[in-house]
């Protein structure tokens, strides 16, 4: 509880802004994060991937769905850096555009899960009683479901597609965050700063989201980052088995699916999109590990 120490200290003697900053846990975490080489590699790598996806129209030498029947299944060359697929489409261009789909779906999926989990976990932990019981029993049942099967069941109900995958990732992720948040709220709601806020008449909603949330969000950020890697993997995996992005989408997993039939004669169709998935997840995991070390007080100093 660095924050409360800083606050109680400030009653005795007003600190300079510099010491105040050095007592701020977020500042310490940011310092720690910036000094980790691996985390920085992940951060720069992921930034490059995101930028190349955003600026794909400027960077890609060909339109991602432009067919060229004169040059199908061509090996990588100076004209086509990563070769062409069975329809003569440029793989490098498709891989750049594909990042838009894979990264976006993973990110939105995790966001849905975090928002849903934070709200439910907050309600369950803060109010307790029957509401807590109801929410946590549903969470227990959802956690008893094998994660991949839960994903598949939701896709089965809503029908294959990237939008479905987004929703499925979000729904399937909610129980994890709910449990994480509820535990932290149970611990946090008895702290003095919550009691103080109650005494001066702050509304329950404001206590939950303005007072408690900033104090318990750190582990959620770490977990969500590591989860993002898993979500990108699940998105491309589901597309690979034909339940996610559908042709002619250049989503990385869907490109791998298209490459299956030509694995013997055109390995590049399978190698490059997979390499992108691997790097995206690797960078995200490096960032996640860096954040975990930065937020974990046991490892600090």
């Amino acid at each position, binding site marked *: 509880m660095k924050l409360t120490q800083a606050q109680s200290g400030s009653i005795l003697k007003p600190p300079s802004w510099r010491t105040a900053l050095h007592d701020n846990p977020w500042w310490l975490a940011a310092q720690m994060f910036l000094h980790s080489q691996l985390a920085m590699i992940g951060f720069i790598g992921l930034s490059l991937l995101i930028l190349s996806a955003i600026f794909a129209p400027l960077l890609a030498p060909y339109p991602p769905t432009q067919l060229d029947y004169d040059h199908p299944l061509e090996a990588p060359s100076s004209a086509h850096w990563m070769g062409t697929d069975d329809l003569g489409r440029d793989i490098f261009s498709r891989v750049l555009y594909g990042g838009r789909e894979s990264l976006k779906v993973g990110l939105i999926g995790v966001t849905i899960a975090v928002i849903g989990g934070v709200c439910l976990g907050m309600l369950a932990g803060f109010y307790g009683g029957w509401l807590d019981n109801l929410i946590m029993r549903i969470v*227990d049942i959802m956690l*008893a479901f094998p994660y991949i099967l839960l994903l598949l069941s939701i896709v*089965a*109900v809503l029908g294959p597609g990237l939008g479905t995958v987004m929703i499925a990732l979000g729904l399937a992720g909610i129980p994890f965050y709910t449990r994480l948040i509820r535990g932290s709220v149970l611990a946090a709601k008895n702290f003095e700063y919550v009691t103080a806020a109650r005494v001066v008449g702050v509304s329950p909603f404001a206590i939950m989201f303005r007072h408690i949330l900033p104090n318990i969000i750190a582990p959620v950020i770490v977990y969500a980052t590591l989860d993002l890697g898993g979500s990108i993997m699940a998105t491309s995996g589901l597309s690979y088995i034909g339940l996610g992005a559908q042709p002619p989408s250049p989503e990385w997993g869907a490109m*791998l699916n298209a490459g299956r039939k030509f694995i013997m004669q055109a390995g590049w169709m*399978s190698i490059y999109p*997979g390499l992108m998935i691997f790097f995206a997840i690797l960078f995200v995991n490096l960032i996640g590990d860096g954040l975990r070390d930065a937020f974990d007080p046991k490892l600090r100093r």
Partner: protein
Amino acid sequence: MLKYTLRRLLMMIPVLLGVTFLSFAIAKVTPGDPARLTLGTKASAEAIQQFRAANHLDDPFLVQYGRFLWNALHGDLGTSFRSRTPVMDDILERFPSTLQLTLAGMALAVGIGIPLGIIAATTRSKWVNAVTMLFALTGLSLPSFWLGILLIIVFGVKLHWIPVMGGNDPRYLILPAFAVSFASAGVLARLTRSSILEVMQDDYVRTARAKGLSDRFVVLRHVLPNALIPVITVLGMEFAFMLGGAVFIENVFARSGLGRFAVQSISVRDFPQVQGMVVFTALVYALINLIVDISYGFLDPRIRYD
């Protein structure tokens, strides 16, 4: 111990009830009339009526759920829309292949991960440690299905050392098992390493050393039994994870197991099959958890007295 086992068995009941209820409800809210899906679009209205009556499709929801549960308890998970075969038969036919894959994957993950973790923790060599951590990080970031594809390209197209797909003898299991186990091997290596490093700092290890026992003896007899307890729990989780991973790997290597079956039944929206799969797999998961908990109780007697 018996009491503990019984209590754990009883705890499975509400979980399984919840899972069956949820999967049954999911199948019910999904658009599409089972009678239409089974009989096809050309079926007459009478035929549809007859089918609905014969399958009790017009009963109240809870009555239908009760019947589903009763039948499931007797090993009947319903009949497929398309093939009209009993779902239970379809599942039991494919489960051995998936179980084989998962067990082979477990053997590889344990055989690679745990020794690597032990070596990394005990040698304190910077080089071994770096390799272990890199291995764990790569394992977590490498999609198993892409690893499978790479293995097919390397061994099937270039090297031809190991058969890639099609046959039934154990050699065909090597590549899929490796692909499905890679991530778990990394996780186990990292966990074993950190768990051993933690236990090594305990007082009883220092005492054992002070008595003059050899390093090897201390590690094998004092450190490992304690350090491996958390590894056992994760072993159960990894087993479940690999069962799920079969969904992807079986597609890569064209193995006809449960995972591929699940994907196929979802693609054609055969709900009795999907539902049966969910219930069956949830039962398997619950059993894995049970086995882990019980073995945990054996390994660490303190847990039983909670």
